[in-house]
């Protein structure tokens, strides 16, 4: 079933992009082929391969149970929040929070996770900011 869904999504994607390609305005300076032909050729191959596993799917992969999926979704949410908060909170604080969360969810006890988070953040800061001189995000406290 998973492969069929992938096939369906792939097919819709191909059709959507072909439709979008037809909307591209042709430039007066265009070459013979133009900017739309190649994307349409790609979409055709994409659509055909999607059609293949729509018809002939592989064996079902083992998806994690709901609780585990929720775990993954939460981790993704934390990473997205990290991306947003990095310029706001600054590298040290944001990274300590995010890596503490990930360490905790990968099976460390809470107190240890906080410690690991702080050490990870400080360690990366030391190596990349202090030693290598990369510009990491600055926060409200100037670091």
């Amino acid at each position: 079933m998973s492969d069929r869904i992938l096939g369906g999504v792939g097919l819709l994607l191909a059709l959507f992009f072909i439709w979008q390609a037809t909307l591209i305005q042709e430039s007066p300076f265009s070459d013979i082929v133009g900017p739309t032909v190649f994307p349409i050729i790609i979409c055709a191959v994409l659509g055909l391969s999607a059609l293949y596993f729509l018809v002939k799917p592989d064996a079902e992969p083992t998806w994690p149970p709901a609780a585990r999926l929720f775990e993954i979704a939460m981790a993704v949410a934390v990473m997205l929040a990290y991306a947003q908060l990095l310029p706001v909170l600054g590298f040290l604080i944001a990274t300590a929070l995010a890596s503490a969360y990930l360490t905790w969810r990968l099976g460390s006890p809470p107190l240890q996770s906080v410690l690991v988070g702080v050490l990870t953040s400080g360690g990366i800061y030391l190596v990349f900011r202090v030693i290598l001189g990369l510009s990491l995000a600055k926060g409200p406290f100037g670091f």
Partner: protein
Amino acid sequence: MDVLASLGDGFAVAFTFQNLMLAALGCFLGTVMGALPGLGPSNGVAILIPLAFTLGLPPTAALILLTSVYYGAMYGGRISSILLNIPGDEPALMTCLDGYPMAQQGRAGEALALSGVASFVGAFLATWGLVFIAPQLVKVALLFGPAEYFALFTLAFATLGGISSTNQAKAAFAATLGLLIAMIGVDGQTGVPRFTFGEVHLYDGIDFLVALVGLFALSEVLIFLEHRHGESDAAHKKIEIGRITPSLSMLKYCTPTMLRTSVLGFVAGVLPGAGASLGSFISYSMEKRLVDKKGTFGTGDPRGVAAPEAGNNAAAGGALVPMLALGVPGSGTTAVLLAVLLAMNITPGPLLFTQNPDVVWGLIAALFIGNFMLLAMNIPMVGLFTRVLLVPPRILMPIVAMVSFVGIYGISGSSFDLMVMVAFGVLGWILRKLDVPLVPIILGILLGNAMEANLRRAISISNGDWSTLVGSPLAIGLWVIAFVGFILPIIFGAALRRRMRLARAKEDEGELVD
């Protein structure tokens, strides 16, 4: 003999203090990444590429760092195969078969040292192969026009799925997905925006680095989160190493094996799309056929450790031949390295040798130096690397994630790019579950624009005549290879992978493999 003169110039490039330091650093980090189960050469290089860019390294230096990581990871993969019976990466799968039994017999140190020497022999001979064969291939490639290049790109995609996926439709899906992502942004030839949906951030297209780090590094973190939670870490067993100097008689005993499998592995590496996994598998199988008269393979025979290690490291070197000479990667990791070349505005392929000889030959010289460094690191210092296996993934994986963010943020300083990277991480996780290979996606993003440009140029030159794409014997030849390369894995690829898995499964049950 001008090849040797060029190589000499290359050594002059490689023997600067900075480049030597970078090679040493790369070898060390690569070995660590290779040793850790789950983090193979592609992931290792993927995490480090953004750093190479943010540090503002010049092209040669960056390439030296990353290829050292590549070679290092090929060396490191064997460590966890031997000590834990968990391959550090796919090419190291076959090393489990005899390496782990040796370790169980208290000969882990010997197995590690021998495999280190075998890795060295394989990589060293393959690097010489690279020196002599790549320039010959370049001569052919200089005859290429736009139509031939278009055929060559198609060949790259057709063969890349290879044995990296069991399903060629999925490999094609991945490649076209990558190509489609490449189409996002302003069209280089007419300046018309394509598939940007009015989003200003998309006018520049999607940076392959963002996609690469998301697909490889972040998806790995998600996979760990899925599997590792709450389980006791397998790596926390007590590891006994024993003596680490292999006896001279054992080295002598294994020398013919190492030489044969180095050649075999090199050939497997040069063939596009086959790569190191095939190199180690056929090396082990051939040696077993050839020398295993008493049926000792699979019970801790040193030759069974030497064969796959020489084979996979030779394949890693071989895979650099088409990457450097044609701009077509011979394996997943060389696809990633090709990405670095392209991103540094260095045209991959034949012109590389004439326009940037310092880059090519400096790189090849650095490979030789790196090999000696790796040999030095992997015999006396092997105890250090085995310590790395004691770092639990619950601490390691968050560091991988955070370093990935640092790398991308350091380049662009944009939260939007970080969000796109997370999205690619999720996509990577889903696609890996569905057995869709990730490397063709990266290659598609990278080569998409050049592929389109060559097609458009070829058709323009011929005044709209599409038959120009098959207008020369060279082009026809490339199309035929592409076609065969796409079809062959359908016949052999699945069977080969099944046999690799089966060989491993059978060994686990203590049976002998055919």
